[in-house]
């Protein structure tokens, strides 16, 4: 019982924070998130087989979740909003609170019950619950007037890349600090063929395959020099490529190449240089027409579709002969080689397949923004992706997704909104000396950094550690000692 309440504080805390920071009807979303997290985390810690007890379990965690969420809603909409000049809307608050409780109870009870099913049905059940939430989300967002959709799409792009990086770092154990290079290569490959830049205006549906293929080829090319390297030497070489690729993209806007003294071509604008490439063709579908930037819903389903397909492929790969070879490689390269695994091919395949997903993400990103610039692919993208992978739990897909969601939302949605609220509070307090400090921009890095540090110190294994590695790894003893 105690673990149950303690564990349900995780989701409750999220609900509280979202309700407090976002205000308005986001409280309803907060309830949903609290229910979803608790429904996932608690039965994992306390598995039950009995349906009736599972319902009780669901109700308990939902109680904890919704109490804190309502606290957040009240604190924000009733206490803070009037201070910062938003008129109090008691009916709205009531609706938000009731909606939050309903969704929280519903989702956590359903998930707890689904968890009692035998594994095969359990998986389908969970997929259905999550699927319903994902599919209905755009309309939820629209009706609640949240306007989170425009943040959700870039977050999903980053998640897709994190999944790809997870293949390289999590599965094969190759620390890659330059993964953004493949993102850049994919985005530029797609942009070059599907924009007026070279006069080739291919459709997005073709360009995305070109991007994936080109990224994979570059994965092979850039992966090959790293073959003899191990550990952090590998990391620094990948970092080097991560630095070289954006510089090359930036400076390859007037390429001249001469074979001895015979100029092959002179002043070719390969990449658009600092100007970047735009406009890039947007996808077109029969009924929807050309995807428009103002309507995020088609984009959402497109990236969601790409993600689902990728997740399917990656999970199949994970359990394939190649996936097991990656695990062997990660645990002990020497032993893996001795067992007859072709370490060279296996490593190269990890780079190439990892890069493919990044290429897909790049192609989507370019089409979504409809423009790309060399600045978008710098080292910090690689670092951020690595944080997402490690924070969630190395080698575990649901962990990576969770970690990615937390980091990306913290950076794009949560911290800016929180800063805005604090800023408004400062202004409302009328304190002249504090007014000069712009909280929104002056403390953002600090808060972001602290988030990373706290997350790591509190959960060093990642949010959802990989069960596979815990079972196999000799360090598991250390992990057990910690918990």
């Amino acid at each position, binding site marked *: 019982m105690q673990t149950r309440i303690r564990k349900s504080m995780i989701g409750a805390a999220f609900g509280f924070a979202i309700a407090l920071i976002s205000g*308005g*009807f986001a409280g*309803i979303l907060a309830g949903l998130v609290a229910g979803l997290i608790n429904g996932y985390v608690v039965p994992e810690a306390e598995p039950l087989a009995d349906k009736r007890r599972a319902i009780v379990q669901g109700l308990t965690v939902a109680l904890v979740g919704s109490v804190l969420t309502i606290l957040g809603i009240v604190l924000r909409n009733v206490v803070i909003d009037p201070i910062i000049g938003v*008129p109090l*809307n008691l*009916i*709205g608050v009531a*609706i*938000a609170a*009731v*909606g939050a409780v*309903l*969704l929280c109870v519903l989702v956590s009870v359903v998930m707890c019950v689904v968890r009692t099913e035998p594994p095969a049905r359990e998986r389908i*059940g969970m997929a259905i*619950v999550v699927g*319903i939430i994902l599919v*209905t989300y755009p*309309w*939820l967002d629209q*009706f*609640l*007037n949240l*306007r989170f*959709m425009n*943040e959700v*799409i*870039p977050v999903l792009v980053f998640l897709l890349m994190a999944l790809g990086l997870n293949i390289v770092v999590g599965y094969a154990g190759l620390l890659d600090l330059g993964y953004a290079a493949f993102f850049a290569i994919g985005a530029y490959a797609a942009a070059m063929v599907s924009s*007026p830049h070279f006069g080739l205006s291919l459709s997005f549906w073709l360009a995305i395959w070109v991007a994936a293929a080109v990224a994979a080829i570059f994965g092979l090319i850039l992966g090959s020099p790293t073959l003899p390297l191990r550990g952090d030497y590998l990391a620094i070489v990948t970092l080097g490529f991560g630095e070289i690729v954006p510089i090359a993209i*930036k*400076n390859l806007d007037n390429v001249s190449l001469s074979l001895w003294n015979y100029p092959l071509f002179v002043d070719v604008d390969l990449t658009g*240089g*600092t*100007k*970047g490439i735009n*406009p890039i063709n947007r996808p077109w579908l029969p009924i929807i027409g050309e995807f*428009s*930037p*103002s309507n*995020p819903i088609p984009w959402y389903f497109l990236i969601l579709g790409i993600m689902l397909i990728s997740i399917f492929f990656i999970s199949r790969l994970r359990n394939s002969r190649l996936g097991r070879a990656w695990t062997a490689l990660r645990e002990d390269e020497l032993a893996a080689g001795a067992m007859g695994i072709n370490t060279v091919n296996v490593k190269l395949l990890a780079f190439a397949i990892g890069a493919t997903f990044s290429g897909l993400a790049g192609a989507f*990103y370019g089409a*979504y*923004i*409809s*423009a790309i*610039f060399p*600045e*978008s692919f*710098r080292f*910090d*993208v690689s*670092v951020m992706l690595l944080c997402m992978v490690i924070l969630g739990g190395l080698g575990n897909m649901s962990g990576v997704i969770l970690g990615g969601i937390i980091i990306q939302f913290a*950076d*794009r949605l949560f911290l800016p909104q929180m800063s805005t609220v604090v800023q408004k509070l400062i202004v409302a307090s009328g304190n002249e000396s504090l007014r*000069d400090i*712009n909280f*929104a*921009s002056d403390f*953002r*890095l600090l808060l*972001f950094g602290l988030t990373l540090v706290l997350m790591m110190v509190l959960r060093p294994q990642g949010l959802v550690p990989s069960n596979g590695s815990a079972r196999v790894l000799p360090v598991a003893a250390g992990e057990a000692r910690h918990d």
Partner: protein
Amino acid sequence: MKRLSGFLILLMLTSMIASCGSLASVGSGSTIKIVSSLPRTGSSKGQTDSIVNAIKQRLEEADYKACDGAFTIVYEDMDDATAAAGKWDAAQEASNANKAAGDSAVMVYIGTFNSGAAKISIPILNQAGLVMISPANTYPGLTKPGKGEADEPAKYYPNGTHNYVRVVPADDLQGAAAARWAQSLGAASVYVLDDTELYGKGVADVFEATAKELGIAVKARDGIDGKAADYRALAAKIVAAAPDMVYFGGITQNNAGQLLKDIRAEGFMGKFMGPDGIYETAFIEAAGADAEGVYATFGGVPAEKLEGDAATWYANYKATYNAEPEVYAVYGYESANVAMNAINSVCKQDRAAIQSAVMGTKDFKGILGTWSFDANGDTSLTSMSGAQVVAGKFEFVQPIK
């Protein structure tokens, strides 16, 4: 399972409809929103602080009211940078633009700071019919046909009408003016550098081309990494090339101060010139004593030389924010000024009407003087000024033809 999911959907729908009913109170008809989208995190923060201050200053003067109190003005300061990137982020700018486009109370979009960001948001806002006023974009291709790539600027305006104006003159004017000024200062040879970013490279390209036309010898052209620790090796190279002048197309934040210090420490005694990206106190503070004698070009007239309304503005700004306004502050103020003027003349929550009012701004008496927008959305104020650092301050030298 099926029954459950059906119930779930039903519940979601009911909660949505329920909440929809109460939404009416959120966006009431008497509120007009002005948003700005600028990089508020990271290296451009100093400049954008100044712009945001100036926008707020203009709105505070109107007490956040328009049309004699019929409308309340709400201002939102959006950040198009992410903490992780430390500078503007394409996805974030797209998100800001989409958010503004989707919020029916938003009537004016002030931004962006970076021309690259504008390339993303102009088409989005164009399709939403929302007017965009930039206080800082100087990339010529955003508005002027024939100055950028072949399909510019048409590609930014998918619905055919222009919805974008800028109160700041574009680079093609500044780079050319700088080259002419360099010639009149007696520079026979130049070494042209840029910070490998859109703004800096653009203005340096124009400078280089004009200099060649004018018969100034361009010794070399190179780009620097704005985040490098030092430029001593480059400085030695410059000293060896012995040009009369070094021209740096770039901004203070991309290490202009360090570049100048290293060039001087290496023993270069010639002239150093830059665009309005270095026309700010921050540059003089960064370069220290070496800033003495540096030339900079900028559009319009320097803030402290302003007269009439503008002089009042300058004094007020200093009094309110206890700081010198940076170079773009005056443009930030003027952007808000144009926006308020259009809102006051339309007095309706009507994007199309406000857009045409802004686009049609004629003989507007702002703090930059009396000016108009041309059909492309460029300001008629094309006068360029030259300034030089004297005793630790930029002093106005002469207008440049």
